[in-house]
């Protein structure tokens, strides 16, 4: 059930009938959906629904048992993380996966990895092309630092930062790759209202100003309904609904999954 307003745009990414299991545990049981260029696509569902597993399939950490991933018109049976990154998919992680001993600046600089091409030879002397390249990329990173309003922590080792700021730095690292598509895994978990508002603003700005397509896993329903263009709802490895926020709010299957009327389960919104 794709949204009629978006039908004219071909999807940027499509997952078809993805099946993923770990031993006897079926994490994803045949899920398909598409993501259209320029939209904010939320993936929601109770804990253990398979949302993060799906992101891991998209950026190549997991190899699905069957199904396919089509990105920019090319169909893959599985993706390698490096391919995903170089084709323009960046991501953040549920538990913040920053490089803790490194400064904010250096962390965001790692996001520029694929934009930097000079050979090992120049690097050895930190000179000539390598130095120019470093400066050019540093300028881009400074823009991102301004964009995310984290100038004051530029040189702070990220391990020392409060959680909310770490999440912001992680977003910065992902944006530094100038991705076509950004996968955000619970970017607002553990944040207070003010921090959530800031983060929402950054996500919207990235989407509107930079034209980044965004896939968002988030538990805060208020945020999800406000930000997203379309929502996929997963439960126990299956897709149970797909559509615009207004439709999802009133969808019977979704309400059942969250309130646990069809099967005993804790609502985890």
């Amino acid at each position: 059930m794709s949204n009629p307003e978006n039908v004219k745009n071909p999807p940027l990414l499509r997952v078809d009938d993805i099946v993923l299991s770990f031993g006897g545990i079926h994490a994803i049981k045949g899920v398909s959906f598409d993501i259209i260029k320029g939209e904010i696509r939320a993936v929601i569902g109770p804990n253990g629904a398979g949302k993060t597993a799906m992101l891991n399939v998209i950026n190549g950490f997991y190899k699905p048992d069957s199904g396919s991933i089509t990105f920019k018109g090319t169909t893959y049976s599985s993706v390698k993380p490096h391919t995903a990154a170089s084709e323009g998919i960046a991501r953040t992680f549920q538990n913040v996966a920053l490089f803790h001993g490194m400064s904010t600046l250096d962390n965001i600089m790692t996001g520029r990895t694929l934009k930097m091409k000079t050979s090992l030879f120049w690097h050895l002397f930190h000179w000539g092309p390598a130095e120019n390249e470093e400066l050019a990329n540093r300028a881009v990173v400074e823009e991102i630092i301004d964009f995310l309003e984290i100038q004051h922590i530029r040189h702070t080792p990220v391990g020392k930062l409060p959680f909310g700021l770490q999440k912001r730095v992680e977003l910065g690292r992902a944006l530094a790759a100038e991705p076509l598509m950004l996968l955000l895994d619970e970017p607002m978990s553990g944040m207070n209202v003010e921090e959530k508002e800031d983060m929402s603003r950054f996500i919207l700005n990235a989407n509107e100003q930079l034209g980044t397509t965004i896939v968002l896993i988030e538990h805060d329903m208020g945020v999800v309904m406000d930000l997203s263009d379309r929502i996929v709802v997963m439960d126990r490895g299956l897709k149970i609904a797909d559509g615009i926020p207004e439709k999802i709010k009133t969808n019977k299957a979704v309400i059942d999954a969250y309130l646990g009327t069809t099967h005993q389960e804790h609502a985890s919104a």
Partner: protein
Amino acid sequence: MLDILHKIFVGPFIEMSHAPDLLVQVLWEGFVSGTLYALIALGFVLIYKASSVFNFAQGIMVVFSALTLVGLIEMGLPAWLALLMTVGVMYVLAVSVERTILLPLVNQSQSTMIMATIGLSSFLIGFGGFIFGGEPKSMPVALLGIPTGSMQFSVFNGHINIQNLDLAAAVMALVMVTTLGIFFSKTRIGRALRAVADDHQAALSVGITLKQIWVIVWFTAGIVGLTTGIFWGARSDVSFSLQIIALKALPVLILGGFTSIPGVFIGGLIIGIGEQLFEYYWGVQMGGGTQGWVAYMIALLFLWVMPQGLFGEKIIERI
């Protein structure tokens, strides 16, 4: 009793002030072995930084690379070609380690990785012995263009004697430590290396390829090993007993921290100079041969005061 205290706390210092030229000589010798210790430790730090693995094969890599170089020269190859080919061999070794050890064991526990490097060192001992034989060889210093002979300087109404070989070794070690220090702190590849050490998945997600980083690190460690092997081999012999010098890297690493390149350098100097001073001014009264253990004593003392080493990365944990 008073006599012993005098011998420990007074005598040596009087001796130092009476013969300052001798003191300078001892300091210089300590400095040279310190830079070489730093070079050995550098090999460990590179691999530890990128994979958090203590590479037990580092000492053997020093011997293996030096043996390869000497072996190729003995086969009649010109020195420059032999050197180039040895560099090639170290590259092949780095790629093989990545393919046969690191890749299959990705995400295994640290102890598994350590066992794997012990296995690697056994393999290199056997393989090196099989190809080049077990007998000690001497480094053809002249063919490699390393200066020999010595220089005399007058200081404090006396003389100090500087071996050209020592000078070359110290300069080479300084250059390597500085270059690699800058390389790994200021460049893309350096950042990628720290990133890989910190978080594999996050590194993959920004497009860093683990394989490439591993090859670069092991290759660099191999080149550092080769440099160490050339100079250490020139000062003694090239044989498998050289590998025990790798043990001297341990106190250096404890002092400098396992992850710091400047730390390695300072640590090397403290150990090198401390060891020489102690042996010359205190050791003789204890029957000599103190170099065998003084380094470890110094390291132990530092561990009591600074468990993370002088330059170890601060362990940051939010509670």
